[in-house]
């Protein structure tokens, strides 16, 4: 048996079938040498996922390929970036396991469709952002509040190309978590500087992001 249960495979096949209207590529950057169990399981998960729909494909890259990392605007390893011809920056630093698995699935569905479940006033405000906004959402796998924050960041990136949304596994990237004084999650860091904590509706989340940009 794989990492995804038969029941969940069936559900995901249906979800992908009704949502993926275009090709979606999962770009997995990992360390080639001394690959950890963590990284091996991530690879196994992604390999399983792409068998669930013909529009899904997996490309495995090495984090040693710094040029490629740079061109994808990725700064941490391992990383899963979801790409399609839809504009947006949906990325996961570390493994989206536990409560975060739903964020990976929703991210795939978003990139393969025209889905956007943000309120109109939030979309309008997001379009007005002119400067680059890098949103990193630090999570733990046991945090039920975190997927909402990750989804906000990812969906914001679909509205405005200036916005990048990344999940960060706070335990795996311990040093970075310490640097940003992460001790409660979801902890959101904007442009590697200012942070705030907690999941909230999209309009309040955007207010916090804009506040951090001031």
């Amino acid at each position, binding site marked *: 048996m794989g*990492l*995804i*249960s038969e029941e*969940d495979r069936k*559900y*995901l096949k249906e*979800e992908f079938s009704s949502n993926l209207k275009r090709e979606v590529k999962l770009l997995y950057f990992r360390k080639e040498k001394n690959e950890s169990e*963590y990284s091996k*399981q991530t690879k196994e*998960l992604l390999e399983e996922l792409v068998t669930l729909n013909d529009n899904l494909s997996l490309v495995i890259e090495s984090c040693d390929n710094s040029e490629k990392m740079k061109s994808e605007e990725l700064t941490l390893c391992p990383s899963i970036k979801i790409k399609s011809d839809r504009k947006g920056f949906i990325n996961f630093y570390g*493994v989206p*396991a*536990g*409560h975060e*698995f*739903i964020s990976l*699935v929703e991210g795939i569905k978003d990139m393969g469709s025209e889905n956007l*479940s943000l*309120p109109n006033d939030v979309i309008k405000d997001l379009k007005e952002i002119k400067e680059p906004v890098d949103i990193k959402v630090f999570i*733990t*796998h*046991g*945090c*039920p*509040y*975190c*997927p*909402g924050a990750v989804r906000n960041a990812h969906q914001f990136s679909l509205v405005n190309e200036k916005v990048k949304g990344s999940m960060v596994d*706070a*335990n795996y990237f311990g040093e970075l*978590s310490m640097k940003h*004084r*992460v*001790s*409660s*999650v979801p*902890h959101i860091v904007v442009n590697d500087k200012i942070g705030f*904590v*907690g*999941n909230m*509706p*999209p*309009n309040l989340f955007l207010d916090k992001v804009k506040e951090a940009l001031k």
Partner: protein
Amino acid sequence: MDFSIQKKQKDSGKKHFSAAVIGSGPAGLTAAIYLGRSKIETVVFEKIIPGGYVVNVEKIENYPGFVEGIPGEQLGKLYAQHAEKFGSEIKTEEVTKLNLNEMPFRIETSHGSYTSDSLILATGTSNRKLGVPGEEEFTHKGISFCATCDAPFFEGEDVIVVGAGNSGAQESLYISRFAKHITIVELVDHPTAEPILVDRLNENEKIKLLVSHSVVSFKGDKLLSNVDIKDINSGEVKNLKVKGAFIYAGEVPNNDLVKDTIKLDEKGFIVTDERLRTSIGGVFAAGDVRNTPLRQVATAVGDGAIAGHEAYRFLEEKK
């Protein structure tokens, strides 16, 4: 690593329902199951994740039928699947405003507006804050209210847990997998958790229980580094060096939506009669948010069944 998924139902696009349930904990989802089986068009609004607070509980051991206990996350998923099986729609949207002055009731959420002919409030409770110096400053900077979320950050560190009730005891046992040492500070002169949990606390070498003590203040520099605690009997204040603090010192009702419209008791819990009717016709309350003598999954489920049935009766009588 776990890769299981919380299944989502397709959005019906409906904006009017016969019954709306706010909160998807055990009470709310049980009400939805009963309403669904009565063929009532029902929507459940949940701001975080179906299952409510129960998903934070590592294992529930006193819910009948699960002899070995069941992870709260799994139970929450089962409740959601069960409610959806009978036709209820669960929306992950935060209810921001209610208008209960007109029928149908008007519900504003983070994502839109809805109306409903009846309403069940199952919004649960939040952890009560202590109101001591330093608490606001160090919340999320060492002070946490969610052990399953944040305990891994305190690997090998000393922490305190405030409150030796069921939540404080259960979470202390969970935190002990990560922390080096845990001091539980309890205001009264004995732990109020179930005796079976108290036995486990006593058996755990990492955990020390300090009864008749209170937290005076939280201190640190940018992050929490120590707390002052006071011996209630002697008045002596001691300082503990800790990196983390988890607070489980009782609950406050999540009543913001109705605090100005519905009758509450002196602590802010929604007042109901035995049929879980509130002071407004067609509005029911179930689970931890109402004035109930015990707040457990089992009692919430019972409340949900009554509230669901009573909402159905209300709708039938209105016809």
